[in-house]
């Protein structure tokens, strides 16, 4: 096991895949000369040269379209968004072209492309730079959405995403780029897309949480353990396709579920999970499913407000107590 930063794990995944397959290339704003806005691609220009590490103008709609065209013609582009907030400029390329061409061409074209970059809130960045986009993109058939919470998952899943023949949105986080963690040094370390990870086994309540929210879930589980309650924490890792089986199996054991989701609440990932859980595990539920989400407003700028806007550990903790009927 090597200890790597989240950004180093991403870089390792891209580097390995580019060494393995010459059709893979990286394109985006500041990825080459500047070594990446968040230093994810540091040193890659030197290693692979300007034909495979490509700086673009500030023109998301343009370079995303270019990426989709390249993928249709047999290359395997990685498109970096400085943040997924900027992907909205290119939403037609992602939703109408990348997601649908394979279907509309009757399978004649494959679109093996990865869109990756920071997603979700990262402090005082105000309303337009703090969006959790995973709920928006996972509604679209044809897209895969991955949200790793730690360096190990980041590496194993990014390698899988690059090898996938379909468009994958790979969502990272500004606040996790510096996070260190153990990363498997198995040769060609691959984590399959669509498999959740049971991060912690428990018997009294299931907490489902992805990306940054996963770390809130782990803290809540520790607090509950101190009081004698046993929480099971599941990190779905992939939002679409969602590993609902693992979640349902857990709830059959615990009979209770709390979901922590940084998305805005309306029609969010937690809404979808709640639907699927009640559909498959209705007779196993001993309490209503509770979700803790960002507040239903644009992200505020003020420090105290953006902190309040985000899912709160205390709320998640209280929710667990509530579904266990121990309040």
């Amino acid at each position: 096991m090597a200890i790597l930063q989240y950004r180093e794990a991403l870089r390792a995944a891209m580097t390995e895949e580019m060494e393995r397959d010459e059709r893979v290339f990286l394109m985006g704003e500041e990825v080459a000369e500047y070594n990446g806005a968040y230093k994810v691609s540091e040193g890659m220009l030197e290693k692979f040269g300007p034909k495979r590490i490509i700086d673009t103008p500030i023109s998301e709609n343009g370079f995303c379209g270019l990426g989709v065209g390249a993928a249709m013609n047999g290359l395997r582009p990685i498109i970096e968004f400085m943040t997924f907030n900027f992907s909205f400029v290119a939403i037609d390329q992602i939703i109408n072209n990348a997601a649908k061409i394979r279907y509309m061409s009757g399978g004649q074209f494959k679109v093996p492309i990865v869109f990756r970059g920071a997603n979700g809130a990262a402090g005082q960045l105000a309303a337009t730079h703090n969006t959790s986009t995973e709920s928006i993109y996972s509604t679209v058939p044809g897209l895969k959405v991955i949200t790793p919470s730690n360096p190990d998952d980041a590496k194993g899943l990014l390698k899988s995403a690059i090898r996938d023949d379909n468009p994958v949105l790979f969502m990272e986080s500004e606040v996790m780029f510096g996070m260190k963690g153990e990363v498997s040094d198995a040769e060609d370390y691959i984590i399959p897309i669509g498999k959740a990870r049971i991060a912690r086994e428990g018997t009294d309540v299931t907490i489902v949480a992805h990306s940054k929210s996963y770390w809130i879930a782990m803290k809540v589980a520790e607090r509950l353990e101190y009081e004698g309650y046993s929480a099971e924490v599941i990190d779905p890792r992939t939002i679409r396709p969602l590993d609902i089986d693992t979640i349902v199996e857990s709830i059959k054991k615990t009979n209770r579920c709390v979901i922590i989701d940084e998305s805005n609440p309306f029609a969010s990932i937690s809404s979808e999970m709640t639907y699927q859980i009640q559909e498959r595990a209705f007779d196993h539920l001993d309490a209503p499913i509770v979700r803790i989400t960002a507040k239903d407003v644009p992200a505020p700028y003020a420090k105290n407000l953006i902190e309040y806007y985000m899912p709160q550990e205390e709320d998640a903790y209280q929710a667990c107590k509530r579904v266990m009927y121990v309040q």
Partner: protein
Amino acid sequence: MAIPVEMPKMSDTMEEGVLAAWLKEEGDTISAGDVVAQVETDKATMDLEVYDDGVLLKRVIEEGDSIPIGGLIAILGKAGEDVSAILASYSGGSAPVAPAEAPAPAAVEESAPVVPQSAPVAPAPVVAPAPAPIVEGRIKASPLARKLAKDKGIDLALLQGSGPEGRIVKRDIEAALVSASAPAPQAAPQVQAPAPQVAAQAASMVPAASGDSYESVRISQMRKTIAKRLAESKFTNPHFYLTIDVDMGNAVDFRSRLNEKAAAKELGKVSFNDLVTKACALSLRQHPWVNASWMEAEGEIRLHHDVHVAIAVAVDEGLITPVVKHADRKGLAQIGAETKDLATKGRNKELTPEDWSGSTFTTSNLGMFGIEEFTAIINPPNACILAIGAIRDTPVVDNGAVVPGKRMKVTLSCDHRVVDGATGSAFLGSVRGYLEDPVTMLL
């Protein structure tokens, strides 16, 4: 200040007492410990002792009157003192009541933990099967509870839910299964058809054809918690017991002098129990291994830096153990006032979790019932509990001569995983030291 004498709880099942006979007249001078009347409970006729000195100002109830626990029996005080304020404050409760209203168990009981706890009490099930449907109309139950009930053949209409708004949840079904498997009149799972149910009701009106008849009492939350925690303590903690006899002569003098001063300052009286609390608190400070907890899950023994003494208080349904926090740093008057306040709150069900959690040691006093000595079950996660007996007038040998003496036996139950015989004995020696020379408690 006039002092009310209340109907004490003389047995676990007692709800009210009948004043069988007055043994003192109004105007008689009474000393603490005197028997002023005899009270007939559901179990026996017992002596009613008073705990204060004074003149019997008023006999509030007549022989043959029945009053509930806590009702006013008599008033003590200085001769000629006004008793109207006390009478007014007990108005209603003091009057002899023929149909004594026992506090009816609330429809949905809060799962109020009874004893201090750092570990949580597992979701406590609420026992249910009552003979008739409890809920009219739509039954609220979790999907899981509905499925379990269907699988096990339990009629949800007969259950009382412990969830929000009476929702029947998994633990309620589990509790029903437990009580259904017990040899109770309703042993068999409820059948949904109405006819057998009517038959069952009718049957319960007449004594069973064979065997003795009995009354089936619903197990309250408090009794369940007591059962669970004390059984767990007694069967898990290796208990051993140390008894010591304390010469209370000095303590008796000390207390009466103290209470004279307290009365002058209009402070509440200090009881013998308060003296014991203080002596224990100071001794715990000196014996950290007694002020300790065996933490199985953490794999450690915890020596507490703070001294919080819990005091067992009898209440309607059982007992509670409110905590006098930082008892080692508090004066006797404050300990007395807090203990009294906590006991009152306990009886009125006004205690908050704050009041009963965090104890590091517990005392239990049955001296007022004339118990000479007894052993108590350790209150987890404490390492020890002190059982306090009555102060007895007894002949003692002093300098070769037999003279009257005052003695009190206290028994320390120790968790042998934490406390060894020598440690417990040293602690008891320290407690005895303070009580035999109470002035040292002020040092």
